[in-house]
């Protein structure tokens, strides 16, 4: 086996892994706090990428004809600033979603909550298509992606963008951990995710705390979308495929374990690139298959995922 080629493939896979991990983290944060699966996570993220796009490029008419987007004032922001603004907008949108759509339902059934998020998925997706058109838009790269822009390690090329994405993801993660461990809000959030009713009894305001949770999750989603918008081209369905992988990653690692989401993203990203490369039976067309099969197999052995807490039924 050609070691350099293997290393090269791993390096290439790392970029996608970071994106999957990031979106999976968003899913996990929401699942931990609210106990629901946010199907709209990908679309909400794409929406923030569009916001970054508007902040960068100024008002953009639709691909055909004038659109409502023409009414939004655009400021030529620098790329990092635009992404930062988009992440903030995403966080606000996430918090608003929790307040407006999830909290009023209270402890509704899984089906109802899934419906709300599916409804949100459809609505966001098509509104984006209405606003910005369905054609792909060019989103500028935050890191240099040119021909010579890479480190060379043992003959394999590690792109600056891959390193950059991981640096951003890890620093956001460290920020999140610090927030959870050392602030009062973080403490409240941890209490709510362990037991909402007990947290409420000791005086934690559950509602606003969950709002923070949604804001954090949407922030991670927004990061994922803004960082990947350059390589997959910005279009309304951009994150739909990524979302399936992120679901797989989150399930693989355990839906309530951030550590699991990170690792799950890595596993999915690597298996997506490596398995089609070394198993002749599976072409690139089917690259989604091994990841999903891996997910099912792991769920069979550990029904709560690799790091998820096993559920114990109380009668």
């Amino acid at each position, binding site marked *: 086996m050609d070691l350099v080629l293997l290393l090269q493939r791993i390096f290439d896979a790392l970029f996608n892994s970071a994106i999957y991990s990031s979106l999976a983290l968003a899913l996990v944060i929401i699942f931990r706090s609210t106990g629901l699966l946010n199907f709209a996570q990908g679309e909400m993220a794409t929406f923030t990428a569009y916001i970054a796009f508007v902040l960068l490029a100024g008002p953009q008419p639709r691909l055909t004809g004038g659109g409502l987007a023409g009414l939004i004032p655009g400021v030529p922001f620098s790329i990092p600033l635009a992404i930062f603004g988009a992440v903030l907008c995403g966080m606000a949108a996430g918090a608003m979603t929790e307040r407006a759509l999830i909290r009023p*339902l209270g402890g509704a059934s899984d089906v109802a909550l899934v419906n709300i998020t599916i409804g949100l998925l*459809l609505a966001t997706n*098509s509104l984006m298509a209405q606003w910005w058109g369905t054609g792909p838009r060019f989103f500028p790269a935050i890191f240099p992606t040119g021909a010579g822009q890479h480190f060379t390690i043992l003959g394999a090329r590690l792109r600056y963008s891959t390193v950059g994405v991981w640096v951003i993801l890890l620093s956001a993660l460290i920020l999140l951990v610090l927030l959870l461990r050392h602030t009062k809000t973080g403490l409240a959030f941890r209490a709510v995710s362990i037991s909402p009713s007990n947290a409420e009894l000791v005086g934690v305001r559950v509602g606003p705390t969950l709002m923070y949770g949604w804001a954090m999750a949407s922030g991670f989603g927004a990061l994922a979308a803004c960082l990947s918008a350059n390589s997959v081209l910005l279009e309304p369905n951009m994150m739909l495929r990524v979302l399936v992988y992120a679901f*797989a990653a989150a399930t693989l690692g355990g839906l309530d374990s951030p550590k699991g989401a990170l690792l799950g993203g890595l596993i999915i990203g690597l298996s997506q690139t490596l398995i089609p490369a070394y198993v002749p039976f599976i072409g690139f*067309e089917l690259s989604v298959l091994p990841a999903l099969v891996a997910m099912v197999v792991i*769920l069979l052995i550990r029904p709560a995922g690799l790091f998820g807490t096993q559920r114990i039924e109380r009668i």
Partner: protein
Amino acid sequence: MSTPLVVVAKDSAEHKKWKYAQWLYLAGFLLLTPLVLEPFEIGKMNRALVLSVAILAVNLVVGFNGMLALGHSAFMGIGAFVTASMVQDENWDYWQVIPIVLIVGFIMGVIIGLPALRVKGLYLALVTIAQAAVFPTLVNIDELGIAARTGGPNGKGVSEEVIAPDFLQWLPGVTGARGGSAYRYWIIVVMIGITLMLVTNYLRSRPGRAVLAIRDNEAGAAVYGVNLPVVKTMNFAISASIGSLAGLMWCLDKGFVAGQDFTFLLAIDLIIGLVLGGVGTIQGSIVGGLFVVWVNDLTKRISIPLGLYTLNGDGPLAKAIFGLILILFTFFAPGGIVSLARMVQAKLIRVVPLAPSGEPIQPIESFDPGMESTRADAAMKLSIAGPVCLAIGWLAMNINSLIVGVFAFGFRMIILFAPVAVLVATNELKAHAEGKRPDSIKGPANTARLLGLLGTAFVIVYAAQRFILNY
């Protein structure tokens, strides 16, 4: 609460009359569909009915067994591809493929259900989403001759035409321009009828009750001796085979099958239909299928000018409206359309159950309104509302706006309540003849009967006119 318009004892002659009336409405709807609609509209109706069957399959798992499985688009796809391949490559007839499709669906259900049902709640949702997401790509595999069978990315067409044989030419609509789609409509209606009967009986049977028990309380069911894995897997497999049957009907209806038809988005459509119709009700599945297709069709005609900008529904907006409807229903009518219909029904009729002795548990007379005959008044209002709404609807149809158009359509449908007004008024007059009502009800009741009869006659004449114009 006001008293319902009609109170009958269960299984009495009166109750039967109302049941027949219900069946008449249904039969009228079924008969008029192929006669009145245009061929392409019948095609849409077919698609709606096919989706209804698939939604019924989803309902069996989600609504009746409480397991959140979202991947039935894949089972539909399996059924559709098996059908296309057998009919096109092996020259089988469609009806010969039915048992094959059912068996294949059942086996696939067991294969996927056995591992999938080990996981619970949202994890199951994720596994089944993975199943739905991966299916369209699986169709394209070159190995094992799969791509040759399924036509790969190009899809597979079935060249056999479905046309009514000579001995079925008497079916409404199957001759003339709309012949093909109307004949397929009748095949689908018959298949749905049989499926509904089987599913209803299944849910009343011992395993069916076990399925419901698992939904209501899993631990409790286990304590009572329900074998959880066996019952769950069986139910999942039965649901999968019904899903495959829907796939067969899809192939029969469209004559063309492609992997791109059975994506995650179809799975989402099924879930929308399930929720809008009513989770855990059989009627809800059927209504849900109709709703998904026809609302989509209506939203496509939207066109709202907003200054420089025009909102057009035939673009991506249709999906946004669906999303909005889904959210609104989850908030305000979590029981779906069926629960709304039941609310209306509760205002119209109350069926008093029988005690073991055969007597109604509460005397029917105790439901009679006192001296003020609210019932005859209500019947009169109902009979007047029909024509008035019809007129409003007719005027509103001229306003070129879809939202108004939909309301106008709904308004015009109120005329269909005219026969109800006639029946209620007749009831009241009979009660008056027996001396149970004051004389003051005579006026309103007579008006209601007259207007109701006129409305009924109008509906019949209108339908006949449409019928003649179409031929």
